[in-house]
């Protein structure tokens, strides 16, 4: 049975007398929101365990393993610890702003899940401007980060927040453009429309868009190699340096929600959402694909160092922006060519031809860009002994 808004609404309005349609509407909405939010918090808590455990294995550590089977109760212990801790804030902090900051960061993450289609019919709402909604809502976390940095009246936090605003605004652009490629191909802004049109996952059809999106998204959620907002080794925690207790817990929750949000969007837009062979239900396909996406993000986090501020900004505008534009032009031209004015959906064979072209172009584009961006100065130089105080050169 699919648990959807319509079923609950029908059930509630069946109980209520006529004329109280708005109550039925709100009750079913609030009920569903409650279910989804609590489920999401639970999933995020489990995800913290997953992330720490897998990261531990990557780093040849064990990860959390003491509390409960395989350390599964560790998130619970963390939450209890953080909630019972004293909520300290600096004397000169802007109380209102710093209290609102964690909420401002957490809410967008929840909002995105309102429109994610977990299955064919499992979604809270199917917005017909879903992609626009995602772009608008994820753009909001800039405010959360800046409020946290500004409100806590700490120089490290301020630096982190300033970095954050510059970076997040820049990476919105390639991210939106990458999504635009998928929208063009699907011919729909609604997420379930995008899923429905993926007879072939868009990962195969437009690898360039996928690449740009995953890079821009990992910058949007400020994870390695773009984690300069918090940058433990530089800013001792960035925007949440001064937060403790429950506020810190909410910041952490938002931070661990971000990969889930990204994985969900990635799954829907590029991995075919809940589509898959009918052996297992669509929801399970969705979860498996999202897990694979989070694993990829984790893998990158475990391996790569952080880029510098100017390099991150340069990469957004000089690297990702042209690639995203190229992707859009390519997709648009191909649609124009193959669809030849018709409105019928593109067939699988045509998509395969398109993906062949796209992979070729992607390879060439990345090769050219890599050789343009890859400055010759990065080539190893041959060391020459300095003539100063160089006793061995004379001996030889």
């Amino acid at each position: 049975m699919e648990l959807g808004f319509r079923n609950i609404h029908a059930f509630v309005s069946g109980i209520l007398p006529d004329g109280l349609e708005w109550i039925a509407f709100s009750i079913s909405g609030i009920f569903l929101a409650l279910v989804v939010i609590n489920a999401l918090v639970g999933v995020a808590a489990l995800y913290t365990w997953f992330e720490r455990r897998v990261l531990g294995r990557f780093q040849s550590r064990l990860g959390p393993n003491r509390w409960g089977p395989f350390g599964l109760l560790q998130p619970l212990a963390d939450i209890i610890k953080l909630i019972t801790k004293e909520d300290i804030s600096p004397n000169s902090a802007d109380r209102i702003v710093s209290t609102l900051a964690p909420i401002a960061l957490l809410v967008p993450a929840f909002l995105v899940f309102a429109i994610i289609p977990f299955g064919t019919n499992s979604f809270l709402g199917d917005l017909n401007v879903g992609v626009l909604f995602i772009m608008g809502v994820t753009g909001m976390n800039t405010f959360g980060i800046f409020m946290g940095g500004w409100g806590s009246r700490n120089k490290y936090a301020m630096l982190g927040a300033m970095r954050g605003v510059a970076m997040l605004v820049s990476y919105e652009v390639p991210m939106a453009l990458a999504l635009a490629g998928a929208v063009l191909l699907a011919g729909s802004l609604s997420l379930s429309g995008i899923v429905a049109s993926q007879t072939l996952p868009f990962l195969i059809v437009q690898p360039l868009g996928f690449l740009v999106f995953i890079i821009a998204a990992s910058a949007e959620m400020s994870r390695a190699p773009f984690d300069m907002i918090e940058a433990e080794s530089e800013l001792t925690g960035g925007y949440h340096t001064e937060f403790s207790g429950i506020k810190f817990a909410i910041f952490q929750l938002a931070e661990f929600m971000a990969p889930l949000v990204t994985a969900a969007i990635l799954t829907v837009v590029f991995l075919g959402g809940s589509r898959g062979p009918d052996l297992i239900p669509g929801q399970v396909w969705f979860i498996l694909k999202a897990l694979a996406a989070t694993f990829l993000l984790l893998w990158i986090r475990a391996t790569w160092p952080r880029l510098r501020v100017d390099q991150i900004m340069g990469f957004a505008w000089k690297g990702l922006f042209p690639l995203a534009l190229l992707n859009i032009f390519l997709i648009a031209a191909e649609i124009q060519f193959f669809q030849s004015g018709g409105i019928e959906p593109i067939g699988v064979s045509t998509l395969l031809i398109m993906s062949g072209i796209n992979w070729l172009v992607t390879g060439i584009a990345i090769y050219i860009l890599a050789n343009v961006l890859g400055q010759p100065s990065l080539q190893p130089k041959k060391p020459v002994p300095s003539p100063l105080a160089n006793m061995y050169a004379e001996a030889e």
Partner: protein
Amino acid sequence: MYGTGIIRGLRITLKNLLLPSRMFTLHQYPDRKVGILWLAQNADINPLKYVLANPGKSIRAIIGLETVEDRQPKHPRFRGEEFTWYEQRCTGCASCAKYCPLGIIRIVTEPSGNAMPEGEKYGIEVFDIDIGRCMFCGLCVEACPYDALHLGSGFEEGTYKREELVIDIDRLRKSRKKPSTWFRPQLEEKSYDPGIGRDVDWTEAGRHESPSSDDQAAKWAKR
């Protein structure tokens, strides 16, 4: 090509994730969680038989509550806490106290009638070692001419009060005689391992059976 380096890095981390030989460096201390397979292997029977034989333990193992004690293996030379001291060998010369860089050994002696068969000996009233300040350099052990003082082999001496870290003579007498083989070649020759070995008697611990005046003269006049 530009960009291949970071991809190769990903390969290395994946290798470290998957290869069992590169997986663990950390010991789970002080106990290790064990699964059902480990238990069955330890009991040397089929896992299925093990589950049928002791279902309680199996359930605990499946939900991850079954633990076995796990200690980091130490080399016999490990300079541990809890000094091992043999009263029978000690003459109360206080070389150890003199050689301690921090001066944390306190010895009070009195002229004593219960002399050893040969050689002089003082009765020892106080022998305090403040291991709260000790850095386990082992100079006292090195200085001891009669091999009476040895470093111990343990490392779990955590207490809640600093006063409890002062090892007094009663504790030294009562403590288990499991000396470290550091600077004690006579123990090392017997391939003694304090981690698994038995307690060492005072007659075995020394380089010479009983210190004589001649020994002392030979040892001290040269320096």
